[in-house]
């Protein structure tokens, strides 16, 4: 809390400086070789429907520094620190306060890299973001850097992406053609908010409610323990990720990329029970030591993207775009309970299991694609439509249904979404309204309106909201109790 207050005090000082008409531009030092800029931001979100509580009171301070060693070499770094007061004031989030209320570990070092640029060769080494793909509201190819999903996918992608330590080399053998090579020795994976957080996936809530909490309750009457075990890959060359992308533009303006990524896919967990004892009551859980093991699969992603601006004819001004990803060897959870390692006993049923595995993990192939059309309609109103489909090659394994990771509902072969984004501006781009509509064919909805207002060059305010509808077992419907309205105030320098 004190750190949050300190952030506010620092912000107030900056605001006072601004009102005193001190120069508000970024700071240049050392003969303009060093440039400092950054911002102080408050984001406050409130749930008006369900909990009537604050979802977020996040204060963020970010400092960006760029040092130009010469025309070709530069060093760039971003430091970021945040403190979220919602974990102090909302009792629903109390259990996760220590994990989520502020920047953890070395996350304060957001980006840090040495950069070399020339017309034909670029090299960037260090902690950085690499982005593939162009989809709105969903990530198809944008998987080089994992995502911090503590706010689902509602945060700015630049903020929610988890930068990685890597080497990026880009070589341009022709004017519009560029080959990108990535070597990523760093292991990182998507971050999911634990149960009891503002945006917990329903599968984590179920795990807590149906397994972990009952086990802890029963522990006083019998033999039950619970632990989590992440089977992270070791730091070695063979566990490194690498990627390749070819980007080119054809003479007719068709821009395409061909992508390959050898990296980590979606993790899946299953419960291993050892020292298995009898059920304490009918349909109750077996006594035993429960360990939830998470496994991180090495996958191969093959994909492509394309964009084309239609330059003539009746569709002039329309942009068509698409991206496709095939992910081979991904993990997917299945239903099922397997009893193992039977030992003989001198009474009926004469053999009893000593171990069990609850939930299975199977290998699947995923196909994901998005097709989009963008067009300015009526001067400065931009309309953007997308058709998105997520496909898995199978929905059952040996008679056990596969489960949809975010919700633990039975997996469908196809998930189809349609999105529309409408945006415009007023008052010489001082006011910028924007609204994303997202519809899933399982009758799930998300509507996210937002209005930004530029008060001054360096002071911006935004208000907006996120509303969800649908059944619990659907991607969007699982957040139907998480509607929020929010306000952002950002002071840049």
């Amino acid at each position: 809390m004190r750190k949050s207050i300190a952030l506010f005090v620092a912000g107030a000082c900056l605001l006072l400086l601004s009102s005193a008409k001190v120069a508000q531009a970024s700071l240049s030092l050392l003969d303009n070789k060093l440039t400092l800029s950054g911002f102080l931001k408050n984001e406050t979100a409130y749930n008006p429907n369900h909990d009537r509580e604050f979802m977020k009171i996040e204060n963020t301070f970010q400092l960006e520094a760029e040092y130009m060693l010469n025309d070709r070499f530069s060093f760039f770094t971003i430091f970021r620190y945040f403190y979220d007061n919602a974990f102090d004031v909302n009792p629903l989030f109390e259990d996760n306060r220590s994990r989520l209320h502020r920047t953890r570990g070395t996350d304060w070092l957001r980006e840090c890299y040495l950069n070399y640029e020339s017309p034909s060769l670029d090299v960037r080494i260090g902690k950085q973001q690499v982005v593939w793909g162009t989809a709105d509201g969903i990530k198809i190819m944008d998987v080089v850097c994992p995502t911090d999903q503590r706010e689902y996918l509602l945060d700015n992608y630049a903020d929610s992406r988890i930068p990685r330590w890597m080497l990026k080399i880009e070589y341009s053998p022709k004017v519009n053609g560029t080959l990108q090579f990535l070597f990523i020795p760093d292991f990182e994976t998507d971050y999911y908010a634990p149960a009891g957080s503002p945006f917990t996936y329903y599968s984590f809530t179920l795990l807590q409610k149906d397994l972990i909490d009952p086990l802890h309750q029963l522990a006083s009457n019998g033999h039950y323990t619970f632990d989590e075990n992440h089977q992270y890959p070791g730091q070695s060359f063979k566990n490194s990720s690498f990627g390749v992308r070819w980007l080119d533009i054809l003479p007719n303006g068709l821009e395409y990329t061909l992508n390959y990524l050898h990296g980590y896919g979606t993790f899946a967990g299953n419960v291993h029970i050892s020292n298995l004892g009898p059920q304490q009551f009918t349909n109750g859980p077996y006594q035993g030591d429960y360990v939830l093991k998470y496994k991180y699969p090495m996958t191969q992603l093959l994909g492509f993207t394309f964009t084309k601006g239609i330059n003539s004819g009746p569709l002039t001004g329309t942009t068509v775009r698409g991206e496709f990803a095939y992910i081979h060897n991904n993990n997917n959870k299945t239903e099922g309970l397997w009893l193992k390692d039977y030992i003989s006993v001198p009474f009926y049923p004469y053999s009893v299991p000593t171990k069990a595995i609850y939930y299975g993990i199977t290998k699947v192939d995923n196909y994901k694609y998005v097709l989009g059309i963008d067009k300015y309609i009526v001067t400065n109103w931009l309309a953007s439509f997308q058709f998105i489909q997520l496909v898995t090659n199978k929905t059952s394994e040996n008679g056990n249904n596969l489960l949809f990771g975010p919700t633990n509902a039975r997996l469908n072969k196809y998930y189809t979404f349609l999105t529309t984004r409408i945006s415009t501006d007023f008052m010489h781009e001082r006011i910028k309204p924007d609204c994303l509509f997202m519809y899933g064919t399982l009758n799930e909805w998300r509507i996210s309106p937002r209005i930004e207002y530029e008060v001054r060059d360096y002071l911006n305010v935004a208000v907006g909201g996120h509303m969800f509808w649908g059944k619990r077992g659907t991607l969007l419907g699982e957040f139907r109790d998480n509607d929020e309205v929010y306000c952002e105030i950002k002071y840049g320098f």
Partner: protein
Amino acid sequence: MKLKLLPFFLIIMLVGLIFGGGNTKPAFAEERPLLLPAPVDCSTCCKKVNLYPGIDVNNLMQIKYIIKYTKFAKDQESVGNFVMIDRSGLKRTRKWQRYRVILEKDGLDYKDLIVLTEPQHIKGLAVLTWMYLDPNRERDNWIWLPSQRKIRRASPAEDDDAAFGSDLTTEELTTRNWSSETYKFVKEDATFAGYTSQYTGKTYYKNTPSWVVEATPKRKPWYYSRRTLFIPKDIGAQVHDDVFDPNGKKFKDILRTYEIRDNGCIPMNYVECVDHRTNHTTAVEIEWIRFNSGVDEKLLSPKALMRTKW
């Protein structure tokens, strides 16, 4: 639903690819050379515009566009500032860096990259534009979105949309070309009385011998009905526009000033636009501009946008 919608989208894509491939030859009206070669021993020199005696209005206007899009040079780099002032006097600024390569080959006219460097909330926002020689071929645009750290092929803004929130439309800033309008001389031996800037307070081009040209848009209906251009005889590009709305009422004043350099380059170094309907003013201050410095065409590609650190 499933895959049934896929064919529909594929058809739309196909239509786009077919209609998008067209590229016809540009129309040229010139009969005499409008640009004279630069001295061979001077790498930084520009081609000189040929304002020959008795020049006709169409060639004069072609020269005007040569100067506007700096086609007298191979490339340009510049740094400048948009200042937007509303009726209450509130100022907003956008600092930018700009790169342009003149190609005039393979159907491409020029490539242009503008990167906003201040204020912080839009720092890194960059727009890459490829303009084509065929005036009927729409430009290609890419935009770098700092909030997503992502490049997007952008649908080109409508020509009558305000460019970067300024009082200048997209057409006035980048897309208007010689074939967009028809021209006639109003006066061939006029004296421009001068224009006093609302932003700097200075009076520019007082008592300057000029041509006066009336330009009428071919597109109808359009947001303006005509404009009157004052073109000094020693420059060949207009220093002032009176812009009239569809009812014939003047609604905009646009001032442009130039620096006539010894090496033949004629950079525009200040633009001011006053919209009398909103009493809003935009001033474009160019801090520095240099030509023929060897900007590589590879730097005006989507890859260049992806280099952006913000």
